[in-house]
Structure formats: structure tokens, C-alpha cells
């Protein structure tokens, strides 16, 4: 601290007198906050229950920091019908946490929306307490062979949910590449 006596005296005085203004030295650990780091899409072929495909987006250190570690391309069979199960996870800590449970509990405030390229259609099959679509479960129907995108977004819509995707805050928005084989 060079030789600034006055500043040193001030530091000493301040530390002696005012240590009680809150716990400066122990900030909250941002890793302990609730965070969605991963999306897991689980497709089960409705005609062939052994055809199960799982695709993942994972960015364990959250927004900023390093780039996502997993960003799968969705590959589905053509002219098939799949049951889709979506899971949202917090994998920032040592043990992964399933956020889907909380979303299901607050179903009236949440909506999972899907936007897909032509050829593939998504029908939401679950509902919230107000009989509005929720989107954690859906039926995905593919047609001909081709490539495109599959966008999933999780909307937080407290007290404003109408089923419209344009409303609310976006908690998750991931655009997967998709190949229909």
C-alpha cells in the first residue's frame, strides 16, 4: 500500500469500528442460485417403445463464461410420432438439480413453446391448473426426410398466461438443429 499513512490509518480505523455493516467478505455464491443450465429432450417413438432418443443442451457455468459443452442435433425418424418429455436441469453445482419439478408446481405461470421448421409439428399434451397448455409433454410428428430447426422456449408468465407465447420473460430459448432421417 505504498507509504500512505493516512489511508492506512483510515483502513485500520474503519476495520476496527465498522465491521458490522453487513457481511462484505462473504458474498452470496452465485452458483447456489437457482439456474437453468441444461435442457434435456426425451423422444419415445409411439409405435416402437424401444426407439428412445435423448438430446441435450448444456451450459454448466450459466450465461457468460465458457460456451455450452453439449449442444446436440435432434435426429428423428421420418413419418413417425414421438412422445416428447422435456426436463430442465441445474447442473452448475456438484449434484444436478431437476428444475422441471418446480416448473410443474408453478404450471399456471409457465409455458413451453415450440417452433419447428415445416414438416415437423408439435402438439402440447399437458395442461396447467387453468386448462391452458403447459408444454412439458408433447407429441411430435415428423414427415419426410430433411433438415431444419427445432426451437424450444420456456416462458415465465406470472398472472399473464393466456397460452400466447409472446408474453412474459424468456427463461430458456434453445434452437436445436434437426435432421429427419
Amino acid at each position: 500500500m505504498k507509504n500512505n499513512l493516512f489511508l492506512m490509518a483510515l483502513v485500520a480505523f474503519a476495520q476496527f469500528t465498522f465491521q458490522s455493516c453487513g457481511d462484505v467478505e462473504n458474498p452470496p455464491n452465485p452458483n447456489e442460485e437457482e439456474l437453468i443450465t441444461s435442457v434435456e429432450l426425451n423422444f419415445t417413438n409411439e409405435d416402437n417403445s424401444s426407439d428412445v432418443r435423448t438430446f441435450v443442451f448444456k451450459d454448466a457455468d450459466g450465461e457468460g463464461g465458457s460456451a455450452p459443452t453439449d449442444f446436440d442435433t435432434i435426429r428423428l425418424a421420418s413419418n413417425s410420432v414421438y412422445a416428447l418429455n422435456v426436463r430442465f436441469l441445474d447442473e452448475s453445482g456438484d449434484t444436478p438439480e431437476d428444475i422441471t419439478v418446480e416448473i410443474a408446481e408453478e404450471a399456471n405461470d409457465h409455458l413451453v413453446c415450440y417452433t419447428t421448421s415445416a414438416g415437423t409439428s408439435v402438439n402440447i399434451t399437458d395442461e396447467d391448473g387453468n386448462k391452458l397448455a403447459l408444454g412439458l409433454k408433447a407429441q411430435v410428428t415428423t414427415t419426410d426426410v430433411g433438415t431444419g430447426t427445432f426451437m424450444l422456449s420456456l416462458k415465465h408468465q406470472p398472472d399473464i398466461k393466456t397460452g400466447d407465447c409472446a408474453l412474459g420473460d424468456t427463461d430458456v430459448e434453445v434452437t436445436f438443429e434437426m435432421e429427419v432421417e
Partner: protein
Amino acid sequence: MRKIFAVLLLIGSSTFTYSQITISGVVLDSITQEPLSLALVSIKNSQILTNEQGGFSIANLTKGLHLLTITHIGCENRRYQLSLERDTTIAFFLPHHLHTFDEVISYGHRNNSEPGTHLIQRINHSKLEKIAAITLSDALQESNGVNFLKTGASIAKPVINGMHSNRISVINDDSKQEGQQWGIEHAPEIDPLSAGTIEVIKGAYTLSFGGDAMGGIIRLLPAPFDDTSYTKVVLMAKGETNPRGGQIGVKLENYNAIKSWSQRLIINAKRNGDAKAPGYVLSNSGFGQLSGSYYSLFDTENSQISFSATGFVQQLGILSTSHIGNLTDLNRALASDTPLRVNPFTFTVGSPSQFIRHYSSKIKWSTDHKTFGKISSSYTIQNNHRQEFDSHNGGSNSALDLNLWTQQLNVIVDKHLHDFRWHYGLSGEYQSNVGNGRYFIPNYFRYKSGAFAVATVEKEKHLVEGGIRYDWQLTDAFLYENKALVNNQLYFQGLSANVSGWRAVSEDVKIHVSLATRYRNPGINELFSNGLHHGSAALEFGDIDLKQERSYSANTAVFYNHNRVRIQLEPYFYYFNDYIYLKPSGETQLTIRGAFPVFNYVQTNATYTGTDFDLRYRLSDQLTAIGKTSLILVKDVKNKTYIYGIPAQQFNARIKYTFAKMLNVHNGHLWLNGRYTAKQKNVEPNEDFADTPEAYFLLNLEFGGQIMEGPLHFNFGVRNLLNTTYRDYMNRYRYFADDIGINTYITINYKFK
């Protein structure tokens, strides 16, 4: 403290009488020495207007103490305590000339009691009361070169020479107001009614308050008290239509001459609902505010002790449509001409919102020492607690919570010796910041100390002033990096210096020059931002290796004041070494919420070139035309680019009619004001989310005065008279919604005495 600035000169005395005394005299302009006719002179129950030669005479007075009051349009009322023993003739010099234009703004006049009166614009309390300055931006609207960044109806940040936030300081008496000032949507937490006198200071004198106020300083001082014992109650109220709501303020003031004790209590409450743009409601833009202050002063023969406490609590809605989750939301908002969320008008503040509390307390002691001169010392403690809520968790838990404690110690010595003034002092500051919720800036301790000295030589026709200041700062920050708690200690020190002066070239022309070098330590957000700026769809990254930013500046000012014309021309030039700013990187980063544009805090070399211009012309005794302009150009000279986020060029024209009496309105005014804000063209292509807004023109109108020379003053006005649809480049809401439409307001000010 209680000196009457007008010079009172006893010209002569004559004939001895027993009981019936006549006072006669002349009222003159203190600067031009010209007689002031139609000034109202009151003593006891007699009132008389001065004649063409400024003369008056009042007979049949008794021996003893009398209170004489002089009222003249464009002047403050002057009160003189006279002890009459015999027939007396007196010349009264009213500083009328300064007030020719009614705007009570003085530029470093000789009679200022403060040292180093280099570049000070002062707006005094009677002016503030008269315009019923309900916000800081109202109060400073007449000053030259101070503009405001406005976000919604409630957030206004001062801008001087194109600079704001960390490059401007707001000083309460002698210590800096400390809040989370780095945010463009964080306004200074000040109760506007508590500001008695507002000064805008540039030049060497600013070194008394810190070295980092590159653009200048806005200093708030308590209003002086009157000379004789009194109790005064002033009621101030405002009602307005857009945003619908109102404000009520009470000021209680008491001076006890026997105990030499003055006290003032101010309480101010404000509540406004959603504002309206032409065509739709700006949903969730309402706010509520409760603020106030207590000030107590013991003023004895050669020492003064004062105590002050202030409080400011504000709940502030954030335009709901402006709070966006990701770029898709932003693009959807940009593509839509009207906001995506428009609800019916309400007074209720929903989420997202901010809840801000600022409390401060100050003890100040000053004494006149025979050898050292005037010694002032003060201790200030401030607490600033900012909570931001998003719509995410339903507004119950704050998403961002920053609690800032600041303690400041100042000792200032001020020695006058004939024409020489010597002004020096020490300051120390201790600050701690504790955050909760999501990370935005780290927890930290910050220790600051500084020493300064300013020497001034003041002669009749010129003033030269030189000052230096040295500051030390240690920041001790605690944050998580890669899941581990780390402690960063950053040490900064540096020298600021300023030489300034003015010279009266002739009776009418005065020229100021100020040359300075100052530095600013990188702010806590500039060093440590790391991640998503929620609500604004940007990833912002600080840089712990940022160096100090240093400015070299030349400010000049030319004042011309002759008969009907007053001109103030204030060109400036700043060169910044290692200028810190938030630069769009042009890249996006993929996150689970989609891709976000990345902004980095970077350093470059930059220049600010600009001028403020103020021209006033008295078309007649009652009619004044005022033109004001602020021009600015900011360049990154290293990369040869423009810098993002600089105010656009502004042009202001006002025609003002003042009158002594019309119907039952006395000392009235009527003005029409046109403000043209040009399109900000000095931007880099494709850097911003949206094109810069088009130029716009706003028309404002106000009528006001005093009812029957009584205790009631009023103002009635209309802002955005034409209900123009516009968006302003410096308003963060511009991406999402139009600015505020027509607003009609009425303010009243009632004095009980």
C-alpha cells in the same frame, strides 16, 4: 451567513428632530448604478414607489428600529434593518442587473462568500421556491450547459458537457452523494425540496470535493435563513395529468435570534401513476416517493455547528415492455410500433420495479480561527439501499439487492488575506457494499483519502486560481470466480490539477479560462461486471486490468452583458487517455436463453468537443427572448470511431413575458418554450439494436405569479403542448415505447408566516 449582499451605503445624514423622522433615498442598480424606478419601498405601514430617478421619501416615522423592504420586479425582495435616530438619506444598491433576466443565476460574482469563485452557476432558494422546483431537472432547467438523461417520468440524471454518471459528482454541501451511480437508469437520490441553493461548479474549486468530477459538480446547499427571529411554514403542492398524480411538500422553518438557532424540516411526498405516450399507456411506469430532511444550525459569533439528516424512499415501476429476456424478445419489441404490453392506467407499481432508499446524516462544525482562518470539518454517513425486482419471482424477493454504506470525513481550511485566498483540506472515506441476489457488482470495501490545496488571487478585474489534489484509493473486492471465492485488492492513486481564472475585459465582457487534468479510477462495474445485464438483453464484461482514465481539459467561457443583451458562450475540449466505456463487441454469445450481444468495458483515447451557448435579449422591459444551444461531438481518436451513448445536439428557444400586475396576478410570468433535439448522427452503423430516433420538437408553456401580492404563488403549465410523438436517443425505453405525451400541471406555493 446572514449578510445582505446588496451594499448599503450611508450617504449622509441631516437635521435633528425630536420624534418625526423622514427617511429618503434612492434605489440604484448595484452594477450599472442606474436608478431603479417603480421599486416598492415599504416601511411600517407606508408604501411608496420610487420615481423616475429612483428616489423615494417616507415621512412621519418614529425613532428606533425599522424594517425596510424593497421590492422590484426581477429582484429578490430586500429587507434592511435600520436604526433611525434622525432624518436619514440612504442609497440602496440592488443587484438588479444580474436579475435583469429573472433567472437568478450568477456567474462567479465578486460578492460570493465562497472562495475560488471561478465557474459557478448558482440558483438560489427564492428562485427555486418560485419555480416550485419539484424535481432537480426543473430546478436546473434555466442553467446553461446542464441537460438531463430521462428514463420515464421519474428518472433524470444530470449531464454536463456531455458527461454523466461517474464523470459528474453530486455534492451535498461538502461531501459526495454516494449511490449506485454507474447505472444510466439510476438517478441521484435527492429530495429536491431540500436543496436550498444549487450550484453548478467547474474549475479549480471543484478540487475541494474530489478529483474525478471531470464534467463538473452539482452542489446542493441548505438555504440561508432570514435575519430576524421568525417561524415560517411553506406549503408546496403539485398536481399533474401525465403521469397523473401529485406531490405535496411542507417546509417548516424557524429562527430564534436569541439562541442563534435555526431549524428547518421538510417533508415531501409524491405519487404518480402510469405515464401516457400519445396513443397508449406506458404500463408500469408509475412511482411513489417519500423524502425529506431536517437541518439545524447554531450560529454563534465565530463558530457554527450544523446537523442534517435526509431520507429518500422511492418505489419505481420499470416500463414492463422494456424488460426483456433475450434477443428474440428484443427483436419482437423492436418490430412492433406499439409496446407489447399495454394495460389500462393504474397507480399500482407492479414488477419489474426498483425500490431505493437513501439516508444520510451530517454533522458539520466551522469556526473562525485567528491564524488559520475558517476551519470547517464534517462527518457524513450515508446508506444507499437499492433493490430491483423482476417479474420473474413475482416481485417478492429482489433479484438484485445492493446495500452501500459510506462514511466521510472532511476538514477544510479557508484563509482570506486581502486579495489572496488559501483553501486546503483533507478528506477520508470508507465505503462498504453488500450484494444479495444475482451477481452484478461484487461486495467490496473501499477506502479513499485525499488532500487538496487551492490558491486564489482576486483583483477588481481578474481572478487567478490554481489547485492541486492528490487521492489514494484501495478497493478490496470479494467475488466468486470459477466457483471459488476470491479477494481482489486494487490500489489507485493520482494527481489532479486545475488552473483557472477570469478577466473582466471591459464593463460588459468577462472571459473565463480553465485548464485541468483529472483522473477517474475505473468504477466497480467497469472492473467486475461479468455476465448478463438482466432486463437489457446484453452480456456485459468488465476488465480487472483497466487503468485509470485521465482527462486533459480546456474550458472557456465568454460572458457579454450589456443593456438588453446577455450572451454566455462556453466552449470546451477534453482529451481522455484510457477513456473507459462499454463497447459493443459485434459478437454474440450463446446461452440457454438464446444468443446475446456481448459488450465489453474497454479503454481508448477520446475527445469531447462542444459548446454551450445562451443568448438572452430583452425585447422590452417585459419581453425577453432566450436561445440556448448545447453542441457536442465525441470521438474515439484511437479507433477513429464515434462513441455510443452521447446526447444529441439540443436547441432551445424561449419567449418570456413578465409583468408586475395583470388582473389579480402580481410578479407574473408567461413563457413559451420550444426545444428541438436533433437526431444523433454521430453513431457507428449497426452498433445499436435500433436506428437512432428521429429529431423532435417539443413545445412547453407556463403561466405563473403571485395572487394579490399575497402568500400564494402558482404556476400553471403544459409540457409537450402539441402532444408530439417522439423518442429520445438517451432514453433507454426508446427501443420499446414512445416518450411521454402532453402533461398539464399546476404548482402552488403558500407561505404562512
